[in-house]
């Protein structure tokens, strides 16, 4: 089977590799990351599939919520048999969106401000902002 990768797809792959510092082709799709992910149930697409889309340069990957749902718990990175740091690739995808001014959280929204009034630890608020706002 021959893949044709669009120019945009190639650029996406290159950017994700540059930001994350990971070689995306080390992944051989065993799916261990998806099996071990604690929040996979809330994801549109399993982490190993997301990596596959980056490999094939499919722009559809940017419409998934997977990398926003990722809690950066490093379980996948710790258990990957090919030592791919999947958490870093998720950070790379988040950054592709954030650097194009597509924030995940609107810190001025009523929803978010209401959270600040609840007694949520600051560390949770700052983490969410650092992961979801440029």
């Amino acid at each position, binding site marked *: 089977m021959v893949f044709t990768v669009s120019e945009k797809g190639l650029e996406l792959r290159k950017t994700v590799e540059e*930001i994350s510092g990971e070689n995306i082709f080390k992944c051989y799709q065993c799916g261990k990351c998806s099996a071990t992910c604690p*929040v996979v149930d809330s994801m549109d697409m399993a982490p190993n599939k997301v990596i596959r889309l980056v490999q094939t340069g499919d722009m559809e990957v940017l419409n998934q919520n997977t990398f926003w749902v990722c809690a950066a718990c490093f379980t996948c990175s710790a258990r990957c048999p090919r030592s791919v740091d999947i958490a870093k690739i998720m950070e790379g995808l988040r950054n592709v969106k954030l650097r194009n001014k597509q924030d995940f959280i609107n810190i001025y929204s009523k929803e978010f401000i209401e959270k600040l009034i609840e007694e949520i630890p*600051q560390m*949770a608020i700052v*983490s969410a902002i*650092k992961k979801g706002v440029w």
Partner: protein
Amino acid sequence: MDYPYYPGCTLKTTGKKDEEAALEVAKLLGFELKELPTWTCCGVVYNLTSDVMADHLSATRTLIRAQEMGRELKTNKLVTLCSMCYNVLKQVNLMYKNNPDKLKNINLFLDNEEDYLGNIEVMHFLEILYNDIGPEKIKEKVKTSLKNLKVDPYYGCMLLRPKTIAFDDQDSPHIMGDILSALGATVIENPMTVECCGAHQIITNKGAVLDCVERIVSISQKKGADVIVTPCPLCQYNLTTAQKTLFEKGKINRKTPVIYLSELMKISLTESNQDYLKDYIFIKDKLDERGGL
């Protein structure tokens, strides 16, 4: 011996109980945690990108403060109580050790501070308890043995992952269990002990946190734990609040109290702990039928 100590934001607010108890436990064990005179946020989450240095600035400032204080106290250690702070400070420190170029760059940028030399050793309170004090010595100092208490030590992610910063076995850690056994408690084994609690998803995706906590707590309850013990303020918050929701939804049939390791240690190591125990009625209630602590 005294250690420079970095509290971080949450230990001054929702995690206050942890700090209060830990500072006292340290005194009872014969050392002191000396808070850094000025400190900033640690950065909370370690920036995983390879090209953003600005995110590491606040952690670097803290490491410089530790370097300054370390000269006075003649130590190169920096102690944290919060798992997240431990993770970030240690990863930033390690990044400098592996990339001297990056350290040089950041030192050039921080020209109003002294240079960071890269030799601070970031340690979690648990490491100090286990390596510098040791379970044997803790056992000698126990005033009230926690016999009859079944505890479930829950580590969470930030102390054990990634592997480069872990101070215990990544998949079957034992340090917290060893300390709790030294206090006389019965330690149960929960396979979910290193699972994530959902972390900051509590803000944007509460459902994910509920799923995670349900898995952790239901196993803990099946194994009969009286309390879940954790060193992390965010795990403590997530596990406590998610249990409330899960209980209302009928997904779990009781709520297990989640407390800090330092709190249990304080109960066990203080001579007259009756006043303090008033805050932990749930422990007393549970144990009355088994003959108390």
